[in-house]
């Protein structure tokens, strides 16, 4: 019937010539592959650093704390980001039967995004970071991201508005939700007040900052690493298998349920922390409910292959899809499970989380990306895949690499958590020395890097195969096709029947977008507004005072070096934690923390009660050579903190900025800040020398860092308001 209609339409003159832009698809594909290899390589380097701490050691720009954010940003925004744009630019044009809205916007989007990535690759190793996970980039880059993202959305919505197809296929809804929600998340989470071009302080402090950050962090996973890839799944699986999606009804339910529920689940990253209990519970409940739409989507993807499983045996594209979607199912089962407070108590802060995210990132995002590229590249180059055999090698290297990666990490995570919690009959911790629980994991860390190496080799094989494929053909930069402009075709019998509500919605992309935003906003608003209202009323602790200028500078060094990537500052209210670290963390202790430094992983011990535990000289020796104070420690040394003198050029500006944000420094204090800093530095340096160290200069950066560490968690131990701010 459809064919007949098309013939009629062609005759009626509604046939139009469309030129799909494949050149932009190719550009994003090359970028995704190039950045992917770099991102995986940096991941491998940081993995090796965990058992050979001095590997590439002594070089500040290559230290673990600075490279780890580079790794996460590279794989999320450079690899997966460019892959999303490959999928969107290829499928959107074909789903809308229209060329991208503007070639100029496509180019601005491409080059803008690559410039942002290069800026990230330059600033993160230099320690220019906000320390908010997956949102580490400083404010000028954040502004650039906003602009480029708007260009992307403009180009996408423009294409949808000009479409020649009445129906907006399900993949497009996922793309739209991605654009709208990521814009919202990015803007809200990045709000900050600049001190200068490369430094800013978060608009939020402590508990609020944590809530906003994990609302962002969780939904970056949802709307950057999930929804666009679901769109890719809904387009490419039917195309590659030649079968329509298993249930289109289910895909509609999947879409609305997923975007409605996902946004609420952020607080599951903050269970047992100082976040209000009701918000934690809400996050946990919605996380458990999320399993329904997630698995609905997974089932819908896999069952699309009903009757086409014979193709899965021979077609690498489908193999990558099947493993990717299966990993999605596993990850989205784990997620809700880890949101249960009893399981979270065991898995949080451990390598279990590392296994969980890599299962998702390497197989779901990585697998789908390569599946899509194996599908697209031969088509736009008008050739065959260079080698199916190499693609199969890639498939097995990827799959086995991930297995060898995640199993030791799951095992290691649970092992360490159990060791943390193990008590002796006399009520003391069996593994009182945190390091014992770390050295136990070294073999697992080695296994992990072997798995990662296999994955990287597989990716290189994939890149080679795709390169050879491209070389064997020639790029069809402008693919000319004839399409029927359905928007011009008069109502014909097959489309004349009563339109259903969703179809009406799809006909109006802007209204569709508004409903999507509404669905997304409800969760955010319900969780955030009460917490924001609590702001001025977070149980105030009278003895908690703002950081001194030296401590503030020390804290900024702590942030610059990425200490939060291995050390948390959040003692949960468990016996095993209070026995190890001291009193559990209270919300009121973080009111001057911009940004918060709770961390998400304990490769080293928690530092929230570090202040006053050890003499200054211990910290001096520890940072100079961690193994001198803690045998077998896997922490790297920080020699540059001893040779670099503290830059106080911006100290005054930092105090002024914090004052604007509401930190109660006395009036006129900014002008005295540097003098106050020097005075305290002398005292700290003298404290170091008391421990037998000679030649300590108060100007050394390490002195500021020690001042900060010695302040941590000490305020609530004071009996009277601090006098250090005089």
């Amino acid at each position: 019937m459809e064919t007949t209609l098309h013939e009629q339409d062609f005759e009626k003159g509604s046939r139009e010539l469309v030129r799909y832009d494949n050149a932009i698809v190719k550009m994003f594909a090359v970028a995704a592959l190039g950045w992917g290899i770099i991102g995986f390589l940096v991941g491998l380097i940081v993995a090796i650093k965990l058992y050979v701490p001095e590997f590439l050691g002594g070089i500040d720009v290559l230290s673990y704390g600075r490279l780890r954010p580079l790794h996460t940003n590279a794989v999320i925004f450079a690899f997966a980001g460019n892959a999303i744009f490959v999928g969107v630019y290829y499928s959107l044009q074909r789903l809308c039967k229209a060329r991208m809205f503007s070639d100029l916007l496509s180019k601005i989007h491409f080059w803008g995004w690559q410039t942002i990535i290069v800026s990230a690759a330059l600033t993160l190793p230099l320690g220019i970071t906000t320390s908010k996970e997956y949102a580490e980039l400083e404010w000028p880059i954040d502004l650039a991201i906003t602009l480029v993202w708007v260009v992307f959305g403009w180009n996408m919505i423009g294409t949808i508005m000009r479409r020649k197809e009445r129906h907006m296929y399900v993949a497009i809804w996922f793309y739209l939700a991605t654009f709208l929600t990521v814009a919202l998340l990015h803007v809200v989470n990045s709000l900050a007040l600049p001190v200068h071009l490369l430094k800013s302080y978060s608009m939020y402090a402590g508990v609020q900052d944590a809530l906003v950050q994990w609302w962002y962090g969780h939904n970056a996973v949802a709307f950057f690493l999930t929804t666009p890839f679901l769109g890719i799944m809904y387009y490419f699986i039917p195309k590659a298998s030649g079968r329509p999606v298993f249930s289109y009804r289910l895909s509609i339910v999947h879409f609305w349920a997923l975007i409605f529920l996902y946004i609420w689940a952020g607080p599951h990253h903050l269970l047992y922390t100082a976040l209000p209990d009701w918000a934690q519970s809400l996050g946990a409940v919605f996380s458990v409910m999320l399993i329904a739409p997630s698995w609905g989507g997974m089932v819908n993807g896999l069952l699309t292959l009903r009757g086409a499983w014979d193709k899965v045996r021979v077609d690498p594209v489908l193999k990558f899809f099947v493993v990717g979607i299966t990993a999605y199912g596993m990850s989205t089962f784990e997620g809700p499970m880890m949101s249960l407070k009893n399981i979270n108590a065991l898995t949080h802060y451990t390598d279990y989380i590392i296994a969980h995210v890599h299962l998702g990132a390497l197989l779901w995002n990585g697998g789908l990306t390569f599946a899509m590229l194996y599908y697209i590249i031969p088509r736009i180059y008008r050739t065959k895949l260079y080698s199916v055999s190499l693609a199969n090698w890639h498939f097995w290297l990827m799959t086995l690499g991930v297995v060898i990666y995640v199993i030791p990490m799951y095992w290691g995570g649970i092992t360490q958590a159990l060791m943390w919690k193990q008590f002796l009959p006399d009520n003391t911790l069996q593994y009182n020395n945190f390091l014992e629980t770390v050295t136990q994991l070294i073999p697992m860390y080695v296994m992990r890097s072997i798995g990662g190496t296999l994955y990287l080799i597989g990716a290189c094989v994939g890149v080679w195969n795709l390169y050879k494929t491209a070389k064997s053909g020639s790029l069809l930069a402008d693919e000319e096709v004839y399409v029927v402009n359905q928007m011009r075709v008069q109502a014909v019998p097959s489309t004349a029947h009563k339109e259903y509500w969703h179809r009406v919605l799809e006909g109006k992309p802007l209204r569709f977008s508004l409903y999507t935003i509404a669905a997304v906003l409800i969760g955010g608003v319900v969780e955030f507004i009460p917490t924001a209202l609590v702001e001025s009323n977070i149980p105030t602790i009278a003895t908690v005072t703002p950081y001194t200028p030296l401590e503030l500078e020390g804290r900024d060094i702590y942030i610059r070096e990425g200490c939060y990537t291995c050390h948390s500052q959040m003692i949960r209210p468990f016996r095993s934690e209070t026995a190890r670290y001291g009193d559990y963390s209270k919300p009121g202790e973080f009111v001057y923390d911009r940004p918060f430094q709770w961390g998400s992983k304990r490769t080293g011990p928690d530092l929230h009660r570090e202040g006053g535990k050890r003499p200054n000289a211990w910290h001096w020796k520890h940072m100079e050579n961690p193994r001198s104070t803690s045998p077998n420690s896997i922490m790297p040394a920080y020699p540059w903190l001893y040779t670099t003198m503290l830059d106080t050029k911006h100290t005054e500006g930092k105090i002024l900025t914090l004052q604007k944000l509401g930190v109660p420094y006395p009036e006129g204090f900014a002008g005295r800040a540097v003098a106050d800093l020097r005075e305290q530095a002398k005292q700290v340096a003298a404290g170091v020398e008391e421990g037998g160290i000679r030649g300590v200069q108060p100007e050394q950066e390490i002195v500021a860092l020690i001042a900060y560490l010695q302040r941590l968690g000490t305020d609530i131990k004071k009996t009277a308001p601090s006098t250090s701010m005089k």
Partner: protein
Amino acid sequence: MYKNILSSIPGIELYPILALVLFFGFFSALIYWFFVVDKQRMTTLSAGILEEDMPATSSHLHHPIEGE
């Protein structure tokens, strides 16, 4: 301890009820729709993307897999 702050919001007692009504209302409607929607139409919509565009030139090759 948060009760003091929350109780100062006018009409706060209606919020959870409203959230519950919205939530269940939305999903009940979605489930109802799931069962009553015209399945034939759904099939047509999902099959739409499988139609290949008609190439304007004859130089297209679509053989991505050896031996396909």
